[in-house]
């Protein structure tokens, strides 16, 4: 009878302690370590801190010696580990080289020569996302309205024109790329001074049309922006194929974009909005390009 009573008592205590433990765990999870449990922890730690410090001070020299003895047999393992660490360090060094190159690109981007006061009125941003499908010709930058970015502002990188800001949030912005078929830009051939439009084709070269061209264009001729949506003289690309003007139809050829859109990373958003003094009169704008 006494044994049964003791068994019942110990079982009740066991269940109580287990339940109490679960209550403590649940409470600790719900209060995320704060509240009463946090206060309790702080109190106990405050109480035991001096004891732990004193014990550590006493045993540290002895423990160090004992630890060294225990690990004596493991020196070979330690050596192997150090070799692995060295390999890891070499790998990190290689990565550092990549970062250095990236840094140089950024430095160049910061010193990018832009017409007028554009350089000071701009911000460097980084591509944080691409388009949502194969037919989405846009990228998302990691900076937005909070950094002064607004819809319509041109985006360049070291190589040339990237596109323009299509939409913006406080901390990000979406850039419509030059390759977007919906995107046409007024351009000028740097040597011949022919004016025309460069239109995206989804990928690869841009389509160039100039109804006013009255002479041949040579492959490799540099193509820059004409003042309109973008500031003048931003590099767009080079003429991909030589072409002769057709009777009464001007010139039609292709332009190889200066920018490698597959490897976009750092870009500069220029705080330039169309409609300033540089905006050409309507009759100057090439066919297909609208004055915003």
């Amino acid at each position, binding site marked *: 009878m006494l044994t049964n009573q003791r068994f019942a*008592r110990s079982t009740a205590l066991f269940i109580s302690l287990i339940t109490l*433990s679960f209550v403590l765990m649940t409470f600790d999870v719900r209060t995320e370590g704060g509240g009463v449990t946090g206060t309790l922890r702080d109190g106990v730690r405050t109480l035991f801190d001096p004891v732990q410090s004193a014990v550590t001070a006493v045993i540290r020299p002895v423990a160090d010696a004992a630890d060294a003895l225990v690990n004596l047999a493991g020196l070979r393992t330690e050596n192997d580990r150090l070799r692995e660490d060295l390999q890891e360090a070499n790998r990190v060094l290689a990565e550092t080289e990549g970062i250095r190159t990236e840094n140089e690109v950024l430095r160049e981007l910061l010193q990018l020569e832009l017409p007028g006061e554009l350089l000071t009125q701009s911000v460097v941003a980084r591509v944080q996302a691409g388009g949502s499908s194969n037919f989405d010709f846009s990228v998302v930058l990691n900076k937005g309205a909070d950094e002064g970015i607004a819809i319509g502002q041109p985006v360049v990188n070291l190589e040339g024109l990237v596109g323009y800001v299509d939409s913006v949030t406080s901390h990000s912005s979406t850039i419509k790329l030059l390759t977007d078929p919906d995107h046409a830009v007024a351009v000028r051939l740097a040597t011949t001074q022919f004016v025309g439009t460069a239109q995206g084709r989804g990928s690869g070269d841009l389509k160039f049309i100039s109804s006013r061209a009255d002479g041949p264009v040579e492959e490799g001729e540099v193509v820059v922006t004409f003042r309109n949506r973008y500031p003048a003289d931003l590099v767009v690309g080079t003429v991909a194929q030589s072409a002769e003007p057709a009777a009464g139809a001007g010139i039609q050829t292709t332009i190889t974009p200066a920018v490698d859109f597959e490897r976009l990373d750092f870009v500069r958003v220029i705080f330039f909005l169309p409609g300033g003094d540089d905006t050409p009169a309507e009759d100057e704008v090439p066919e297909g390009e609208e004055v915003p």
Partner: protein
Amino acid sequence: MRFRFLNIGLALAIAAVILQTTLFDRFLDPFGVAPDFVLLVVVATAYQLSEEAAMLLGFSAGLLTDLLGNTLLGVWALVLTVIGYVTVRIRPRVEGYGLLTLLSVFALTIAGELLYAVLGTLFGQQVFSDVNAFKKVLLAAVYNLLLALFVLPLTARLMRRDPAAGVWA
């Protein structure tokens, strides 16, 4: 006299928690693994205590471990309560057999560590995310087995009482 042995057990458990957080976790952790000294002391003292006293001792030692460590409050309390209870239950089967007693320490350490891992995981701690989780469980059990050679006789000597007089009797 009623609580004398429990008090000795509690004092040993507190000392074990302090040693665990100072000596073993910081200095004596060969291969990056420390023995589970608190669990070992709970098992060693539970062999000398009654069922209720062993559970209370386990709960107290576990709670102190939780409070001084950075674990969820109550996990070690539960684990060591269970360990204390199981130790007393298996005591009649291993008492008098040195090797069996040592093996029970090994098995109880593994059981305790695994129970902790499971409970921790259930309550959102990433215990099993540790790539060395099983190595730690196994090595801690081995260390406890080796330490038990010294801790068990020491505890028995400190707490040896008249077998006819229970702690709660």
